[in-house]
């Protein structure tokens, strides 16, 4: 029983803790709430399957979220009727809201990007909120959450470039990257414009991924720090319960999770509109 006890509370190790030595994953020092996989890997230390699960915990949780969302959509559209039931109505509200939102930015021709951007919003939103379920971890936060956010940002980057090339052709794309030079002065400035545009295009996925990762990791670390505070507040009683001092920060985490998903989607939409705005009226 004490091994289970230690495997739950030890993953809350920080730099300042007494350093139990069980926990190999506290190398970055930032506190993290334990989830099912870290509890398993603490309860079976050294077992290959437990270490394998712990190594891939981001991917496992991302898969859980993706499968959960897919099942939700499957069950909502199984027998689609004209007078929808509750689940179908909820999903239709979400899809129509996203469609109007993205159509408002990209115009009526931009609605063909709604599947990608809407899925991005729902997926990131569910991933951010998933970490607030006890025993789960949000794949976008935590020590290795940068991998998930970089993957999402790279998807957006490649899709934006592909949409630009398909809309404007390869020469039109290069022309857009050079800043559409039309006069002699603009042609002279091309060696300045081209690297600036290229670096700007590369900076976009970097900022997207770092923003999402930093916000969600910051929220998780804040929650873990206040959980530790709550536990140490009643530590003199020697019982494994503490005060729930982290409750206001769960509401803050709900808010920032939603806002960061919205900002990611909105910025991706704006990148699409910036890439596709060149030859609209020609």
């Amino acid at each position: 029983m004490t091994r289970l006890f230690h495997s739950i509370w030890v993953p809350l190790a920080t730099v300042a803790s007494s350093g139990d030595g069980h926990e190999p994953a506290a190398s970055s020092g930032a506190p993290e709430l334990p989830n099912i996989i870290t509890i398993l890997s603490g309860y079976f230390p050294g077992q290959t399957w437990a270490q394998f699960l712990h190594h891939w915990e981001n991917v496992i949780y991302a898969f859980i979220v993706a499968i959960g969302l897919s099942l939700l959509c499957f069950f909502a559209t199984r027998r689609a009727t004209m007078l929808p039931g509750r689940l179908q109505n909820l999903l239709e509200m979400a899809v129509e809201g996203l469609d109007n939102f993205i159509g408002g930015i990209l115009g009526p021709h931009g609605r063909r990007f709604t599947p990608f951007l809407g899925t991005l919003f729902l997926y990131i939103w569910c991933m951010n909120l998933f970490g607030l379920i006890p025993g789960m971890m949000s794949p976008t936060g935590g020590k290795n959450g940068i991998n998930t956010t970089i993957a999402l940002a790279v998807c957006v980057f490649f899709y934006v470039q592909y949409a630009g090339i398909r809309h404007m052709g390869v020469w039109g794309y290069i022309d857009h990257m050079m800043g559409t030079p039309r006069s002699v002065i603009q042609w002279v400035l091309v060696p300045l414009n081209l690297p600036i545009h290229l670096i700007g295009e590369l900076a976009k996925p970097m900022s997207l991924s770092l923003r999402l990762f930093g916000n969600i990791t910051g929220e998780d670390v804040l929650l873990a720090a206040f959980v530790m505070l709550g536990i140490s507040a009643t530590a003199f009683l020697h019982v494994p319960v503490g005060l729930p001092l982290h409750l206001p920060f769960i509401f803050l985490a709900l808010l920032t999770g939603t806002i960061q998903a919205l900002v990611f989607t909105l910025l991706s939409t704006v990148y699409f509109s910036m890439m596709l705005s060149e030859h609209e009226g020609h």
Partner: protein
Amino acid sequence: MDFRTALSLALPFGLALAAIGSGIGLGKAVAAAMEAMGRQPEAAGKIQTGMIIGAALIEALTIYALVAFFILQGRIQ
């Protein structure tokens, strides 16, 4: 003074400076949004959406400082 002391002294100061910057920027942005909402209450929805998005973008710079803090804090040991 070895690098651990220097990092431990400098990192919170760096983060606090970033927080000051974002505090000032967010204050200006939200103040402008509040004023615009006061002038035209029927556009309050769109203004609020724009304010939230602008706030997230301004906050992102402080988050970059926080990410740098996490990375460097792991190297103190």
